[in-house]
Each structure stands twice: as C-alpha cells, then as structure tokens.
C-alpha cells in the first residue's frame, strides 16, 4: 500500500505545483487522476513513481519494480526499439535472452508500426508511446504509472492498453493513470480522483468492481452489457471486470448461455 501524506511540490522560483496531497493506493487498484492542463497531475504522478522528490510531505510503501510511462517519450538515438527494450529488460534484471523475447512479445502485442527494428529517432509519437509503455512492462511492475497513456495511440492499441492495465492490476499491482477525458477513465479506473490547482479534490467516485472468471465457448454474452469494463482470455478462462452492482446480472446471463463460473472475486 502506497501512502502519500501532505505531499507538496515547488520548483525554485515558481508557485507551488502541488499542495498537501494525501492519497492511499492499494494493490489491485486502478487509480485515475483527472484535472485540466497545469493542474499538477503529471507532477503528482512523477512523485508517485519516484521520478520527482516531494518538497514537503512523505511517500511510503512504494513497491518495486516501478514502471513509469511519461506523457511524451523524446528519444533521438539510432538504437532500435527492440535493442532499447532489451537493454531495459537487462537493467531490470532479466538475462539477454529473456529480455529480448519479452521485448518482442510486447512490441508484437502493441503492434509497433515499422517493426521492432525501427530506430527510436524514427518513431512517430504514437509508436514512441508504445515503446515507452513496453519499457515500463518489460518486467511486470508492482506499480505502473501512466501519464495520459491514450494520447497518440491508435484505436487498436487502446484495447491492448486496457488489457495490459488489467493484467497488472489482476496480478496484484497498483496502476495510476491520468487522462483529461473523464469518460475513458470511468470505463477503466476503479478509483477516480480529481486534482485542481495542485490540490486533490474529494474523490468523485469509487466504483465497486468484481472480477468474474468464466469458462465456455460460443459468442460472449457480456459483449455490450452495461457495467462490463473489460474482458480478456487468460488460458482457459475469460476474466471479466464488472461493476459490482451488475455482477449478479452478468452471472445470470452467462449461466443461461451455457458458460461455467470458475470464480468470483470482489
């Protein structure tokens, strides 16, 4: 559990960016921070990830490894995306073979345009964003911090991103992310906080979610059902994250369609 207590941030010669932020982040939480431009949400995320040190207050309980995806990934090197990620895998403790394989898997999954031999300096904004994302996931993180991860990504990568986020949270990790489109966050996050003028405004909503594991075949009956945040296949079962209030409804429909319930967690 990561705890921020009275966190403030001030850069020399400028007004405070953050003031008195208290925030608790639990395992399996997908925490969204919303706010306008310059509201301090990027700074808050940098402090959560450990990139910036707070000027006042404390951050305790940050787990390792941490994955941090900045809003922009400026890279001017000639090194290929695959080699860059392999290096990052090794820095995070993988051997060369496993680092290379993991890099290839992630880039395949994110469908990097131009292939994984593309040099960093030749990547478009969206593709650079994919490399930054893969960099944070080379070793499955206990804490994943994403600054506007949807910006610049194509539509097909949106679904992959949601799956990757769900994987991290499903494995017991904590995910913190921002976006300025509240609708996107409501669909993904389990907890939403709003930040305004460097202060955290009372949480706007907490969605009670349930995770349902189903086994079976045929057309998925939950497709298009209200309250279903996401579904992805994990081995023989399909793992569905659903609004807690709609959980029974989903189970009833699934059982009626001949699917078998393997597990329900709140």
């Amino acid at each position, binding site marked *: 559990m990561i705890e921020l207590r009275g966190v403030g941030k001030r*850069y*020399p010669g400028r007004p405070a960016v953050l003031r008195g932020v208290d925030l608790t982040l639990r395992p399996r939480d997908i925490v969204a921070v919303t706010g306008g431009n310059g509201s301090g949400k990027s700074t808050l995320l*940098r402090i959560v*990830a*450990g*990139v*910036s*040190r707070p000027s006042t207050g404390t951050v305790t309980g940050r787990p*390792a*490894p*941490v*994955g*941090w995806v*900045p809003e*922009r*990934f*400026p*890279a*001017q*090197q*000639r*090194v290929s995306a695959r*080699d860059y990620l392999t*290096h*990052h895998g*090794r*820095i*995070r*403790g993988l051997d060369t073979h496993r680092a290379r394989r993991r890099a290839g898997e992630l880039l395949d999954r994110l469908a990097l345009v131009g292939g994984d031999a593309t040099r960093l300096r030749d990547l478009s904004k969206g593709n650079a964003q994919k490399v*930054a994302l893969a*960099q944070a996931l080379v070793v499955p993180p206990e804490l994943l911090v994403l600054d506007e991860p949807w910006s610049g990504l194509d539509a097909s990568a949106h679904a992959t991103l949601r799956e990757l986020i769900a994987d991290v949270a499903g494995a017991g990790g904590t995910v913190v992310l921002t976006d300025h489109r509240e609708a996107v966050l409501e669909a993904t996050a389990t907890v939403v906080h709003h930040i305004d003028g460097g202060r955290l405004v009372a949480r706007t909503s907490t969605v009670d979610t349930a995770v349902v594991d189903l086994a079976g075949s045929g057309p998925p009956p939950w497709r298009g059902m209200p309250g279903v945040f996401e579904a992805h296949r994990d081995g023989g079962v399909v793992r569905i994250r659903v609004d807690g209030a709609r959980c029974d409804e989903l189970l009833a429909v699934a059982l009626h369609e001949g699917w078998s319930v393997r597990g329900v967690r709140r």
Partner: protein
Amino acid sequence: MTALVRYTLSMTVHGQAYLPPLILWASAVVVLTMNDLGPLTGSYAACAMTLFVCLTWLTAVQVNTESQTQRAMTAVAAGGLPRVFVAHVLAALVFSAALTAVGLVFPIVAGTHTVTAADVAIGATAQGICAVTGIAAGLLCSRPVVPRTGYAVVLALLLDGFLLIANAVPPVGPVVRGLNAGIPPGRLAGHAAVAVALLVLAVATASAVASRRD
C-alpha cells in the same frame, strides 16, 4: 550495474557525438608524440593532458545523449538517479582504459625513447589521474547540471583551462608538469587520491542538482 553500463555505452556509441572528442584526442596524441626524441615521460605528459580534455568532453556528450525524460525512465528502471551517474562514470572509465592503453603504446612506437617499466607505470598512473579528473569535470558540465549548452561550454573551458594552468592546484597541472620534471611516485598517489575524491564529489553534485530539477 553491468547492464546499465552496457546500455550507457551502447547509447553513446549509437549517438556518434562521441567522435569529435576522440578525433581531438587522436590528433593531439599524434601531433604531440610523433617522432619525439625526449624522455618517454614527456610524451606521456602530452597524452595525459589530452586525455583530460577529451574525457571532459566525452563524459558530457555521453550524459547528454539521453533527454531528461529518458534519463528519468532509466533512473526508475535502475533504482535511482545516482546509479545512472555511476554508470556514466564506469562507461567513461571503459573509454579511458582503452585510450590510456593506446596512449601508453603509441609514443613508444612513434618516437625514439629509452623505455623503462617505471616510466610506463608512471605514465599509466598519470593518464589515469587525468582521465578521472576529466570525467569529474565532464559530469559538472553535462546538461542535467548546466542545462544551457553555451554556459556548459564556457564552464568546461574555464574548468579545464584552470586545472591545466594552475600549477599549485592538484591533480592535473602538477601531474602534467611533474612528468616533465620527474615526479616521485609517492606524490602521484596523493594526486590520484585527490582525483578520485573530485570524481565522488562530482557524482554527488550531479545527482543532487539533477534530482532537484526533476
């Protein structure tokens, strides 16, 4: 740390900005030691001086290869900004070792000297001292410490110029001049300790200044 040093070296070599300082070093070593007839330590003094300037430039270039955001990502992966700077130092030491090896052999091959093991050992130590001090100066002139390139260049010229000219300020000036005059090995050990202390100080300063800005 091995992985981090390997990454740092790879990013530097892919960047190609390391070439100008190496070309400077190679030209200066050739011009200053070719067909030299004097004592071997005199040629080594020229190599040490050149290595000092080259390593200042090379270290700064190496640190500047990564953008601020990229450096922060690497720091998150590596477990802290100080480790990133230590990796830069180790990578620069790899370059230093290679250049020192050439700087020890080339004057023997290119000039006419009486070669003794003691002279070669003194030359190696002196070049090591100058390389380490050069790395320290390079860290202080890198973008995380001095963000504006113009100021960084001025600072590098002043810092290197001062350390080369100031005869009483250890370690570079006294070592380079001492090689020409026959410096006792005991004095070299003292200068080596000063050089290492400067490098530790530079890593601490660079980490502190860079993390204040993040």
